[in-house]
């Protein structure tokens, strides 16, 4: 690990002043790992955990009739354990509970989770050519061991998978990210945060270098309780997704009025499957309709030598997620109305 300057920011203003030239650290579970591997070598690290003291909003979960606001420094484990989130947004609670290990979830912040970087083995080991880590050096994964790699949203420059789980849940809940910078606060749909690799895989997000994530904002919705996250891994627990699906469904007498579908483990970014959503609208939610939607979701897939299995696997995961969401029962009305938790 290269030496770096270390500071603690006690206010958002202080953090923003350092931000354009410094790297912020929250839980450190992604960043410290990549610093130790020599994948990144920030010159200046700013610890933002003190911000939850200055403005409690960064460390607080608020759930009311307008929806859910998660401060960027809320820990994964806190959101996972929150009874109101479990009742009103089960897809979100499950996406957190099925991620990493409880130790990591205790440390990891939601802001850091959204921005976690790929686990591509060639990205992680600094001696390989990698267009994301060293622009222009090539991509060792294209003809390498690419079993973990993406089949959707890839390019000739990079096929790295977006590894996180929570982002897919946020996509199907129509969530927004609150960004705070020197020019003020703006809300950006989660779908607009990550960039597909194209010819510039080293450009991963649309955040400006001097912007902080301050919160995740999830609107209230009468059907967000009918939502589900299904994740398949190489082992039952403590592993990244080979394929996952987040779904939220608005059903009326068994027919789909609206659907939201997002795929994980198979794409370069948190992947909204709009064609699959459209294929479901107006149909009764049965296995036949779910399979048609799953075909549509992967119509544009491009596979490599070792990852073609992700297409049928991803389709099956999506079918299961849709059928499981269809079978959910609404929570009792008290928890649906929601309460504010400090």
């Amino acid at each position, binding site marked *: 690990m290269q030496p770096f300057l270390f500071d603690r920011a006690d206010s958002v203003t202080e953090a923003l002043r350092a931000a354009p030239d410094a790297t912020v650290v929250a839980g450190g579970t992604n960043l*410290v790992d990549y610093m130790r591997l020599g994948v990144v070598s920030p010159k200046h690290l700013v610890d933002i955990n003190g911000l939850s003291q200055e403005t409690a909003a960064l460390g607080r979960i608020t759930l009311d009739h307008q929806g859910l606001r998660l401060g960027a420094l809320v820990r994964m484990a806190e959101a996972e354990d929150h009874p109101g989130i479990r009742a009103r947004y089960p897809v979100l609670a499950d996406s957190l509970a099925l991620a990493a*290990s409880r*130790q990591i979830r205790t440390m990891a912040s939601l802001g850091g989770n959204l921005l976690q970087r790929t686990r591509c083995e060639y990205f992680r080991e600094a001696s390989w050519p990698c267009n994301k880590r060293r622009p222009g050096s090539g991509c060792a994964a294209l003809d390498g061991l690419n079993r973990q790699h993406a089949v959707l949203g890839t390019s000739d420059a990079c096929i790295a998978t977006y590894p996180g789980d929570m982002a897919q849940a946020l996509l199907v809940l129509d969530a927004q990210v609150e960004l705070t910078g020197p020019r003020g606060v703006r809300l950006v749909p989660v779908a607009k945060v990550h960039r597909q690799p194209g010819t*510039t895989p080293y450009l*991963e997000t649309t955040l400006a270098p001097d912007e902080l994530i301050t919160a995740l904002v999830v609107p209230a919705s009468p059907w967000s309780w009918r939502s589900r996250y299904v994740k398949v891994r190489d082992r039952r627990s403590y592993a990244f997704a080979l394929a996952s699906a987040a779904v939220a469904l608005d059903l009326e007498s068994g027919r789909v009025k609206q659907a939201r579908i997002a795929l994980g483990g198979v794409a370069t970014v948190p992947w909204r499957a709009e064609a699959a959503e459209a294929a479901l609208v107006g149909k009764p939610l049965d296995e036949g309709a779910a399979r048609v939607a799953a075909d549509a979701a992967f119509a544009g897939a491009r596979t490599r030598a070792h990852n073609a299995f992700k297409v049928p696997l991803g389709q099956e995961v999506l079918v299961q997620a849709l059928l499981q969401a269809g079978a959910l029962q609404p929570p009792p009305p008290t928890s649906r109305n929601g309460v504010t938790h400090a």
Partner: protein
Amino acid sequence: MPDRSQSGTVNRRHFLAAVGGAAAGGAATLPSPGDAATALAAEAAEARDPRALHTVTLTVNGQDHRLSLDARASLLDTLRDRLGLTGTKKGCDHGQCGACTVLVDGRRELSCLRLAVMAQGHQVTTIEGLAPAPDTLHPMQQAFIDQDAFQCGYCTPGQILSAVACVKEGHAGDDDQIREYMSGNVCRCAAYPNIIAAIRQAKTEMEA
């Protein structure tokens, strides 16, 4: 709004240094000139020595330790090499095995992924400080002995601290839940069935 093409995880200066002019293609835009305060802050940072040590007070097992630390030092290495608390083990150093689990303010964390400079102001508990008094054992330690819940013992301190937190969180309801919430602690000797039995035993005592 200036320069939004940039990754939030790679700062502007490193980005420009890494990509140079040509390789960036069309997508990169030039950085906007920062305001005066930013420039001053950057200059001030430039003048500092990244190797300078940080004076940090760590509270470990109820005792304060004032240390001069390299910012790169993990809590794990600091516990072992500076405080001589070698009960906390290093398995992978990358968050993948759980051997380094300690309690921070009563919650389980991986000490390999926490920088020691970021542990100031928190209460750290290691396996050495778990028992209520000298020459006694915590019920979880006793249960691991009673149930023969280890072979080589390397993962055991991490298993025990993780298990204590698992019970306190209310995640030791049944065997399946214990398995799921203990999955962050890998045991190469595969003592898993006995570890589960130990957690069941200690849970009864801890909740009595």
